[in-house]
């Protein structure tokens, strides 16, 4: 398989090749070959009376699958040590991705499609969960960074937060002439414009209970009964609140994308660890009730 092309004598580090395309999709081919070999063997293996994990072919695939799972999980250790070359972290991640997908074929064929409410199917389900979350992770990594970058528009998260802080200071000043009810509305924005929080809060970019939104709504009602000087102040405040709304939306979008980028790991990693134990129970139980 062709290596990533080098330009002149320069290191190929300058030509960025992601882990998916690493070494000309070498590991994609390996994973595909492994899956096809497993499927062909499945058809050829004359397993009676029906394909199952307890046949010779079942044990063969099961052994391969178990070793794969242990190796795939070892990425968690490997990623903390960064090296170069064929066994660089990138190569490892590339193999992790494609062999992990091939594992679905191997484990499914190992099962002989025999499922039930038991530890064996639990291990299988956890494995599928791990792979699916991993596939989601790849998809997220393929599209979301661009969305993140588009949303940031040359600013950093810290700057976004600063912008909102600055707007808050201005709001605080601009709202000083307001009477108590009007000021209370502005305080909603200052105190209740929450960003972040739990998983689902971080996913929503326009929460209904956003203080700034509520402040704008309230002021709209209050402006009719306001005095002349208050109206002018409310005009200033509303303009600031509109700007703050936009700033909040940008920050929330930023956070939502970052959450989506990281959320899969919250499933991928715990499910992998649980899978290791389910796999152990699966194997030990088979040998105890041999």
């Amino acid at each position: 398989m062709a290596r990533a092309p080098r330009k002149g004598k320069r290191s190929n580090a300058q030509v960025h090749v992601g882990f998916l395309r690493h070494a000309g999709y070498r590991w994609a081919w390996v994973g595909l070959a492994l899956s096809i070999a497993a499927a062909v063997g499945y058809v050829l293996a004359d397993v009676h009376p029906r394909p199952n994990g307890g046949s010779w072919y079942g044990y063969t695939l099961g052994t391969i699958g178990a070793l794969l799972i242990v190796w795939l999980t070892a990425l968690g250790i490997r990623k903390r040590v960064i090296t170069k070359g064929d066994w660089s972290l990138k190569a490892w991640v590339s193999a992790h991705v494609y062999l992990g997908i091939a594992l679905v074929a191997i484990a499914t064929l190992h099962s002989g499609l025999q499922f039930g409410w038991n530890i064996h199917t639990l291990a299988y389900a956890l494995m599928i969960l791990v792979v699916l979350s991993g596939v989601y992770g790849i998809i997220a990594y393929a599209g979301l960074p661009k969305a993140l970058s588009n949303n940031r528009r040359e600013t950093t998260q810290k700057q976004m937060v600063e912008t909102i802080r600055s707007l808050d200071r201005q709001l605080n000043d601009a709202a000083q002439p307001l009477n108590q009810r009007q000021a209370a509305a502005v305080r909603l924005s200052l105190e209740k414009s929450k960003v972040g929080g739990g998983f689902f809060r971080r996913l929503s970019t326009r929460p209904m209970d956003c203080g700034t939104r509520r402040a704008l709504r309230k002021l709209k009602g209050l402006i009719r009964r306001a005095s002349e000087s208050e109206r002018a102040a409310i005009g200033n405040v509303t303009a600031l609140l509109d700007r703050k709304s936009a700033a909040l939306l940008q920050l929330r979008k930023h956070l939502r994308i970052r959450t989506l980028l990281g959320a899969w790991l919250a499933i991928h990693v715990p499910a992998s660890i649980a899978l290791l134990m389910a796999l152990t129970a699966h194997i030990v139980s088979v040998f105890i009730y041999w």
Partner: protein
Amino acid sequence: MSFTLRQITKRAAGGEIVRKKTYAEGPLRIGRGADCEIRVPDLAVSIHHATLSQEGLGRLRIQAVGDQPFGVDGRFTKSAVVKISDVPELSFGDHLLTIGPGQGDEVILTLSRVEAAPGQGDVATPATLIPRAKVLGKRRIAWTGFLLIAVLSLILPVLAVYGVFGSHPKIDLDSQWSSGPLSKTHAFLENDCQACHQQAFVAVRDDACQSCHTASQTPAQLQATVARLKTRGAPDQPLRTVADHAGLRRLVWGTPAPDGWGEQVFDYARKVFNKPQQRCASCHVEHIGDPLGDPDHAKPTLQTAHSCTACHAGLDRRLKDTRLANVADWGRHPDLAPLVTVSPSPLQVRRISMAAHPSENSGLIFPHDLHLSRTGGPARMAISLGAGRGYGAPLDCQSCHKEEPKGGNYLPVKMEAACGACHSIGALPHGDTRKLVSFFSGGGGVVSRSGPTMGRRRPGDPEVYSGVTASAAQRIRGLFSPGGTCFGCHGASPPTDGSLVWRAGPVKLADAWLTEGTFNHDIPEHSKGPDGQPACATCHAAGKSGTAKDLLLPRLATCQSCHGADRAKVKQAAGADCADCHSYHAPIRPTRKEPAKGSKAIAVQSRAITWGTGQ
């Protein structure tokens, strides 16, 4: 009384700015409004929130203007009188107003903002923006799942296996290890893994199966087993008991060594993982039922571990003491080897191959050819007897050989029924010559059916002893002399001890010659020709047999003319499966093709060979 207001604000870069303002006298207004003397730039504070005024010497009164209260040393109130020397602290929104004594009658008012606790500033800080999930952190979930599975699916079931929770714990901890449902017959054991998996890390042994299914149980033991199973919730169906094909050790020795590297690998793996292939469970597989594809999974799935010929080809090389001939394949199947009666008295039987042209010595004198001749005396006798007595035509096989009521085979030939119509012995007792002595000595007469006036005598007609004057000795001698009633079939020797008891040759007719396999006469091709007429002669050359010494069985070649024959050449060609004539657990039977429905429990025993008792 003068007031000095020190307003402290924090710089963004750090440090404080202190602005001082002095008021010669009160009252001072406190509020957010621009006209207030003490301006609190806090939206939580009213435009004019409260008024501070002097109240006697060294005291100040603070009075709220609107409905909103303010804090005095942590308590909220709308009106308060404070002592300056106490250095009270008033709070308005996020701001603190500290009152303290100055020089002379000066009062120093210090206004500052309350420091926000970390994460609770005027706007969300990065810490609150992206808080780490506290309860559901990755590591926490990971270890929770890991430990839950470890405890629930591994540790507790293992403890249950080793009997920590007793032999039948209320919660069935280890059935989660079952890889698939059991067949319906065994479903009642679903929650009792140890009924079969008796030892951890040891593949299911035959003992477990035989605890119910062994054929070596007496009827009483079988009843007890059935009763025991019933209390365990076994389904209401007969318990099948089976005999071993051979002992486990003989099976192991009889199994050929692995052939080829692939088999060697399997064999090695089986040895390493201690999973011998000669167990009951090697062929009768559980836990692989398919609830979707086969919901009526009635009994364990049968999986053939070895073909018959795998072991029976060259069996004598591995089992030196075997009596069985090697069978490499159907083409090299040994010839039929009937159990031949070599001597009727004392009884001696020997298994002799048809290839050796065995001759049977049952003690009976009987020429098949004479009786089956369509023109001889027997034929005419049968015609004259008429259809009313079941004859009316020349004799054929069925005249004497009657089918078993349930089919499949023929009943033993009984003299009285099969021969009696022609070879009548009247009231004479058959079977024991000693009874003849008492019969005649006791004055028993013989009445000829046809009477003495009839000119012709049928074979066996009691002409010799029809006279009433003859003595018992004379009569008996007549019966056993050439031409006498008994002599024709039995031959005889006179008594040597002076008594009247003649010795007729005993007759030992075989019930079955082939005792290690079966032949079903009910299969049409087995008993009828292409024209639908009985074709007994194809296999049994009775029409040409002049003596009962002929063993009227075919050679195996006759079987092979159809079984295993080329379908293109032989119209009636049929398969040549070992299972057509033999079965694993009971070689005498063919293998059952379909599960017998509602059949009775079958205690498979090698079919006992019974012998006719001299009739």
